[in-house]
Structure formats: structure tokens, C-alpha cells
């Protein structure tokens, strides 16, 4: 009985994702993917091929995108998330679908329910990309981790997000691990200055 309920919720979220995707303005996918690729290449050049720095930069860029994207996500999809588990499904089925056009799956929940993986079978960002050996430690789509982190932080979930597997590196799928650090309570305070 619980399984049926879960399947119904998952289908409802999938439909919501598709509806939200339809409401979004679209741009040419190739333009987007190629622009992203140029951004990564430029970052590598600017940082003398230092892969660790670029990984961090991509995460920061993603964070700045995520804190802005969350309001658009909230205004276009009416998914009230009451628990961390809800946010996982909403991110995968609605968030990813709305902004990337592909949905993800939630897998590998940890025992304490504080950690899960997002599996992407198809990552549009890597459509034309190939990773040379000297960049083997680069997480090419690390921007996605930053986006998830920024977006969730704005709705009071402080999380750690990192890539586990990347198809660009030969893995069978793309996997991003999301771990809950803490839930931040309301930040309201009067400034006395």
C-alpha cells in the first residue's frame, strides 16, 4: 500500500516536472552546451589547468546560479517540500526537468535518511565534450553541484553536494551525492545599527 502511494507521488512529481518544463522559456540546446564548454575551457586557461581550483570555481558559479534559480523554481512549480526526502524527489523530477530538460532518479538513501544520490542517465552539459587525460580529475559538470547546494540553502537545507561518478570519465552513469549537514532555522533578526 505504501509502495503504491509512493509510485503515485512519483508520477505526480514527474507530471509536475513536465508541466513546469513547458512553462519555461527555451533556448537552443547546442548554444547552451557550447557556451558552458567554453566557460569551463576559459576557467582552465585562467587557472593554468589547475583542476582543483576550477572544480571549486564551477561549484561557486553553480551556487550563485542556484540561489537565484530557486525562486523561479518555486514560482513555477507548486511543490511544497516538508521533509528532506521530499526535496530529493522534487529536485530530481521537477528541478532537473525544468532547467535541464532531463529528470534524474533518486537512489541509495543512507540509513539515517540524510544522504542520497541523484543519478542522471543523460547529462546534456556533456553532449559535445570529451575529457583529455590531463583533466581526468576535473568534474566537468560541477556547476550542477553548486546549483543544488545554493538552491537548497535558500530553503533552509544546508547540504554538501559532490560528484561521485561521471559518464564523461567512462562510468555507466552520472551520480551526484547530496548530504544533509543541517536544517537552518529562520534567520530573522533586527539589526540594531
Amino acid at each position, binding site marked *: 500500500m505504501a509502495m503504491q502511494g509512493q509510485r503515485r507521488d512519483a508520477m505526480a512529481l514527474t507530471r509536475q516536472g513536465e508541466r513546469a518544463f513547458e512553462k519555461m522559456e527555451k533556448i537552443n540546446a547546442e548554444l547552451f552546451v557550447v557556451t558552458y564548454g567554453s566557460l569551463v575551457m576559459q576557467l582552465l586557461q585562467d587557472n593554468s589547468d589547475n583542476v582543483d581550483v576550477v572544480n571549486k570555481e564551477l561549484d561557486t558559479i553553480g551556487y550563485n546560479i542556484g*540561489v537565484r534559480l530557486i525562486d523561479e523554481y518555486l514560482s513555477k512549480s507548486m511543490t511544497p517540500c516538508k521533509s528532506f526526502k521530499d526535496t530529493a524527489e522534487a529536485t530530481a523530477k521537477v528541478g532537473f526537468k525544468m532547467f535541464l530538460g532531463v529528470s534524474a532518479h533518486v537512489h541509495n538513501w543512507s540509513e539515517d535518511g540524510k544522504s542520497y544520490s541523484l543519478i542522471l542517465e543523460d547529462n546534456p552539459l556533456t553532449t559535445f565534450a570529451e575529457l583529455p587525460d590531463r583533466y581526468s580529475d576535473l568534474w566537468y559538470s560541477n556547476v550542477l553541484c553548486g546549483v543544488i547546494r545554493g538552491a537548497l540553502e535558500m530553503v533552509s537545507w544546508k547540504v554538501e553536494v559532490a560528484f561521485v561518478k561521471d559518464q564523461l570519465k567512462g562510468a555507466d552513469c552520472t551520480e551526484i551525492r547530496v548530504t544533509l549537514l543541517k536544517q537552518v532555522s529562520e534567520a530573522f533578526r533586527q539589526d540594531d545599527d
Partner: protein
Amino acid sequence: MLYSVFIFNKFGTCIFHEDYNSGDQRKGVWVPTPKEANKFKLTAGLVHSVKHFILAVAKKEDLADGFFGLQTNSYKLHSFETATGYRMVMLTDTGVSFAEAKQPLREIYSNAFVEFVAKDPSYEHKKLCVITNTAFRDHLLVYLKQLSFFSTPAEELQH
């Protein structure tokens, strides 16, 4: 009749305020004066306190939308809070029903706020960052002017 609109961020700072139908036309970018700052703090505190009062007092089953408004003899305050902690507040006269103000508050969020503030690279979700984007103000004014209750006084509204 719509008196004014406030937007507060999650830190309780008033990041936007505009009076309508008051006779003065503000020009240029919105810059809060120290005199107004007190008024904003009071309003922010009021909305915050009432919301928490309701959460503490109401039974869980009754809590659908949370706090969405309060009314006195002479005015009504309508509030909408987003999951990101932003509060859109409208002050109107008593002729505007709470139900009628719900959708406009959400539209202020999704059409004006998301488009011109959230997506504006010069706006940051920091404590003291206010909305300085004139496009937001103009767009908001255009939207508000076409609302049925924008400048219609209470006596003339059909309820």
C-alpha cells in the same frame, strides 16, 4: 484601494517599499530614509511575530496557508511568504478581501520579483541588499495598476 507594498527578505530587512494612491510620485531609485526605516522595522516585526504566534497557537490541521493577513477597522494587511523567506506585504483599505489579494501577491512574486530581482546579477540575497532595480518598480506598477482594487475605494468595491 491599494495603499502600499512592502517586500521583506528573510533577515527582516525591508528591501522594497512603495506607496500608491497617496498623491506623491517618487522619482528615481528607491532609497529608504532613516525615518522610514523605523516604520519598516515595525512592519517586519509585526508580520514575523504574528506568523509565529499563529504557528504556536493554531492546531496543525488548521494550518493551511499560514498567516495571510490581518485586519483592523481602517486597513488590511495581506502577506505572502515564500519558501525562501521573502515576504510580500500589501496594505489596502478594508474593501479588498483576503481571497482577492492572494493571487496578486503570488504574481508579484512570480512575475516581478523572480524576473527582475532574483535574476538580477546585482541583487544579492544578503541581509542589507535592497532592490534598486527600476525595471522591477516599473513592472510592478504596471501590474498593480491593472488590478481591480488598485485605486477603487472600499465603498465602491462590490462585496
